[in-house]
């Protein structure tokens, strides 16, 4: 599974330009003959139908997109100005390497700042080594989006990479799908790899509207509080298991689902944690307010340094997340 995670993390897929990741995931799906479809916005949907009596429709969503930087201007000397796509953290950008879809790389430089309060994205620029605008235009154009460039690495039980948010969620869902592929399931399940979550849960909304599921479950990462002076105090930590989402800024999870998740975890001896995320949202936020309302929940993989090039998760948590998802989907809802 580590190979898959590596491939997913290293692939290119900022919000709005998820084609490459989607192709990669389709490649995996074809390995176990899963039928899939792609909707207007680019959401990738795999349906496991079940017309049985009492079968409920469950939408399991994992977003494929990552944050990025979009070029808005190329100056005379070939330096690129940009805006953020999704929640980009300005403080980690100076000195970072970035990667464009066609393989062009660049580095982020910074103008002189007199006062910390002045510092913002508009004081930064990307340098792709071009001598002037003409040369730059041979490689990139206004509207092109870059992602952070950072290698995947593993130390003991921890893996570090960019875009673990949310390629790790995609990996967990893919692995669960594999393990469930030969088992009969009591419910009808739509596994959806959504687009544009990072810019406002935009993929999840229309796909929920169209599929009209009975329940929704978002598989994504969540913050932890186990580093020095964390930004938000929370009890969630690496290595203590997947987190059952109670609430984040976008959704208060339905108690039926949180109750079921806890029951399944305890019955199967899967370690788990409880998550109250002070700031941050997921696809469940869009799903639960669709049409007349869809009870929704979240299965979260604890992750340090979210939205930096060195996001970090624990492999035991990843395996336990897969186990929990598998057992959850084997259960009747």
């Amino acid at each position, binding site marked *: 599974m580590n190979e898959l995670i590596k491939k997913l993390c290293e692939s290119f897929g900022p919000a709005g330009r998820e084609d490459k990741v989607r192709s990669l995931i389709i490649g995996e799906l074809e390995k176990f003959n899963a039928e899939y479809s792609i909707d207007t916005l680019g959401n990738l949907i795999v349906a496991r139908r079940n017309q049985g009596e009492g079968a409920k429709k469950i939408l399991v969503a994992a977003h494929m997109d990552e944050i990025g930087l979009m070029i808005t201007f190329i100056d005379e000397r070939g330096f690129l100005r940009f805006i953020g796509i999704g929640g980009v953290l300005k403080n980690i950008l100076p000195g970072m390497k970035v990667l464009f879809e066609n393989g062009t790389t660049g580095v982020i430089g910074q103008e002189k700042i007199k006062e910390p309060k002045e510092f913002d994205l508009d004081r930064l620029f990307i340098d792709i080594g071009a001598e002037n605008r003409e040369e730059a235009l041979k490689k990139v154009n206004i509207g092109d989006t870059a992602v952070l460039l950072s290698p995947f690495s593993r130390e003991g039980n921890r893996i570090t990479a960019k875009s673990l948010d949310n390629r790790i969620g995609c990996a967990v869902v893919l692995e669960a799908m594999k393990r469930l592929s030969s088992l009969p399931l009591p419910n009808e399940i739509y596994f959806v790899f959504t687009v544009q979550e990072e810019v406002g849960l935009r993929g999840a909304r229309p796909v929920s509207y169209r599929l009209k599921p009975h329940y929704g479950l978002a598989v994504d990462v969540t913050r932890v509080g186990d580093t020095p002076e964390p930004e*938000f*105090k929370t009890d969630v930590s690496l290595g203590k298991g997947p987190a059952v989402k*109670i609430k984040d800024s976008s959704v208060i999870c339905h108690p039926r689902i949180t109750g079921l998740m806890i029951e399944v975890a305890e019955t199967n001896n899967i370690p788990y944690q*409880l*998550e*109250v995320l002070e700031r941050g949202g997921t696809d469940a936020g869009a799903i*639960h307010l669709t049409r*007349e*309302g*869809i009870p929704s929940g979240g299965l979260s993989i604890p992750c340090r340094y979210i939205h930096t090039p060195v996001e970090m998760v624990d492999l035991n948590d990843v395996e336990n997340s897969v186990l929990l998802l598998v057992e959850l989907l084997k259960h009747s809802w």
Partner: protein
Amino acid sequence: MELDAFLQEITQKDGVSGYEQNVAAFISEAFSPYIDDARTDNLGNLIYYKKGKEPDGTKVLFCAHMDEIGLIITGIEKNGFLRFTSLGGFDVRTLPGQEVTIYGQEPIEGIIGYKPPYMEKGKEKNNSMEMENLFIDTGLSQEQVKKTIKVGSVAAIKRNMLTLLNNCRSGKALDDRAGVAVLWQCARELSRMEHEAHLYFVATVQEEVGTRGAVVSTYGISPDLGIAVDVCHGDFPGAMEHEVSPLGKGPVITTGPNIHPFLAEALSDTAKEYNLPYQRDVSPGPTGTDARAIQVSLGGIPTALVSIPLRYMHTSVELLTLEDIKVAGRLLAYFAAGLNNTFVEGLSCL
């Protein structure tokens, strides 16, 4: 049951955003003698239906939110103290010294604690504290606490309703239990009147975290027009006159882009016709109430907003007068009784 008793009881039923079950049960019981049908939707919104005489009659939605702002536990410290964050918007400065009830497996009482003044150093002295500097003290040890309370347990403000001069009442959650009380008064009045229109009284959930209940309940009902009943800022010392409405001068009818102008007029006309005191206020953008969600549901719904003036909103000593609630209930009842299809059709002709 009379209004005073209804308000006393409903404010004591803890129902924090997302966890409204306790108050939902009370509301259902109180409404049942006055309505024809009741259902609860997927998010927990309570939808009460009262049939009108005209089979093809207009569908009218009245809604008030039953959730109150509250707290949710984010961590349990080694001495059993609880860390928390808010569900809905609190002024942190009102929290130190506030009693709360935490809903673990059973309700447990606690106090929100902060450090004593001599411990504040440097800039802290001149600044207000942040939520992360507060904690809940139950007096129990970590072991005892962990037996019943978990991360994710919710806590509600504890405050008995106080009776003050001039029929004023002060307590917690009057935002927006006062609105629910208006709907209840309205339903009672209507039980003695005839009306063509079909009426939906909805006690919505999760308004304080983003008018979420109203989004899905409106979609499910698909009404021809909708009226949200909420609270607005009551007068207090130092307020700018245009920001607040005095207590005791009647409910406030809002105008602005979020409100259908004909509806606002019709409500004012009804008040004038029946000699009911009322006030007007304006909102230049989407209001901070369920009205903002109703207006843009489905294909668009003509929306109005009626509010009860409330001082000290989002504190545990919110203050209003019962008189304003009684008048509002009557206003909505007369308005509903006077509705016919012609008027409603005219709403699309802007």
